[in-house]
């Protein structure tokens, strides 16, 4: 087995050659502290950070003064939610989010209960879509924040962000969206979509791990999550991870070039994989929305079998993927996202997510379909469930 097919790009991506190249000189040449602007080395670092900031801001149609660097998507989510909650608690204590958010959002909302905040978790339909009517009817006078993810990391479903933004705006409620999976995969326009706060993470689009961003619309009241030095216009303390910020900027620059082309190529490959699985393997259920989904996401449940065993067999054939089964995570329940779409536990346990990249070839796709066919057959042959059906 020599072939290696990495189809877990929603977990993290390989850092792009051009990104590594760009980062290089910030380790031992331009290693100054951006806050030490008085001397040349410091100024250079500062400049590099500001250039990256402009690149990322431009990509989402934000002003560069509204863009802040963080250590990743989780920090951004925590910051957005805790920061808005603590800064606006005189206005109200109610937050609206969904049942399918990333744990960085869900666990943060749970934590805030300790401080007297209350959260409404919106349902989703079988495709993972929220119901705008339910959103509207959940709004109370005490609602200070709506946090709804742009695109889901497991099933790829893309929410009607602009409509949500309009509703939030009408009611004068702050709107945060976790766009960690969306950045670089869909066109984002924070102005047009009325987004007030948005979480981003570089390692999901060919940038380095441990660096992310947050868009904060001018005028939004938000407390710091990390207090201290005056970095990031006093909003996020800590010496900037300059080399990582430069890498983030480069990754976004690359994504913004040939964006439409990239997306349509990805979509085409994704559809081939989706069709191939549907047509070659019986008893499968597509998770997520058939069309309103991320261009890189293919997620099926394979009935009568369990996800971890599939992943182990895939790994033996050099294929990396992920599963929503509880057995992979060591937790008791399978993915909260799959359960929220109405899947029963058994079916949810048999889910496999493939997330492709632009490096994924048709040959890869065919190999994956063939391999999956064999694996599912093999596992079903030893499954007690199959016969009972």
């Amino acid at each position: 087995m020599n072939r290696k097919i990495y189809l877990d790009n929603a977990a993290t991506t390989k850092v792009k050659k051009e990104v590594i190249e760009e980062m290089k000189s910030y380790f031992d040449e331009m290693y100054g502290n951006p806050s030490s602007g008085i001397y040349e080395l410091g100024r250079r670092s500062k400049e590099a950070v500001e250039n990256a900031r402009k690149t990322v801001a431009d990509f989402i149609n934000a002003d560069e003064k509204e863009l802040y660097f963080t250590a990743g998507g989780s920090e951004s989510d925590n910051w957005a939610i805790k920061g808005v909650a603590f800064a606006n608690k005189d206005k109200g204590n109610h937050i609206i989010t969904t049942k399918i958010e990333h744990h960085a959002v869900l666990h943060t909302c749970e934590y805030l209960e300790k401080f007297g905040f209350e959260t409404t978790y919106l349902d989703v339909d079988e495709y993972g879509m929220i119901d705008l009517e339910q959103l509207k009817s959940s709004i109370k006078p005490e609602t200070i924040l709506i946090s709804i993810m742009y695109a889901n990391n497991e099933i790829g479903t893309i929410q009607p962000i602009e409509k949500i933004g309009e509703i939030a705006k009408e009611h004068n409620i702050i709107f945060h969206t976790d766009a960690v999976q969306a950045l670089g995969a869909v066109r984002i326009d924070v102005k047009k979509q009325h987004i007030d706060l948005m979480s981003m993470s570089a390692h999901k689009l060919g940038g380095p791990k441990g660096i992310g961003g947050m868009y904060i619309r001018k005028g939004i009241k938000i407390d710091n999550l990390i207090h201290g030095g005056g970095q990031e216009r006093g909003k996020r303390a800590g010496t900037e991870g300059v080399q990582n910020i430069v890498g983030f900027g480069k990754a976004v620059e690359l994504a913004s070039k040939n964006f439409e082309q990239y997306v349509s190529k990805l979509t085409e490959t994704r559809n081939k994989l989706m069709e191939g699985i549907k047509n070659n393997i019986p008893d499968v259920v597509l998770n997520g929305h058939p069309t309103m989904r991320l261009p890189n996401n293919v997620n099926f449940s394979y009935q009568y079998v369990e996800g971890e065993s599939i992943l182990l067999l895939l790994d033996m054939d050099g294929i990396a993927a992920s599963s929503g089964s509880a057995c992979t995570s060591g937790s008791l329940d399978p993915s909260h996202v799959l359960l929220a779409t109405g899947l029963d536990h058994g079916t949810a346990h048999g889910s496999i997510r493939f997330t492709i990249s632009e490096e994924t070839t048709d040959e890869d796709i065919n190999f994956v379909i063939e391999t999956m066919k064999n694996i599912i057959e093999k596992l079903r042959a030893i499954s007690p469930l199959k016969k009972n059906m």
Partner: protein
Amino acid sequence: MYTEIVMDHFKNPRNVGSIENADGVGQVGNAKCGDIMKIYLKINDDIIEDAKFETFGCGSAIASSSMATELIIGKSINEAVEFSNKAVVEALGGLPPVKVHCSVLAEQAIKSALYDYAQKTNKVIKGLENYTPEDEEVHCH
């Protein structure tokens, strides 16, 4: 994450399948928890002559059922009742802590099959007097 023995039993599970007219059949776990184990026993003169399994579950669950069936074939039913998941874990060269419960499932599946045998044959198996298989299915893990 898994030992070579686990991976071997996972890749090439021994004793897969069912036994027609088995003397004892036990099924534990449920799909909700992501694991179901079904064990078939062929018993002659209180000796387990053959054992087969079907499993819906993770790598550890499949390897545990494979190893468990290997270990109990040839044992007397009294020995089999004493059989514990520790023996499976040991024989597999260890399991990750979060996966030990999958081997417990194997122990329970065997007990459940022995119970079924005792019911069918009206035998009292020492150590199984207070056993009720339903108990095992209430909670995940």
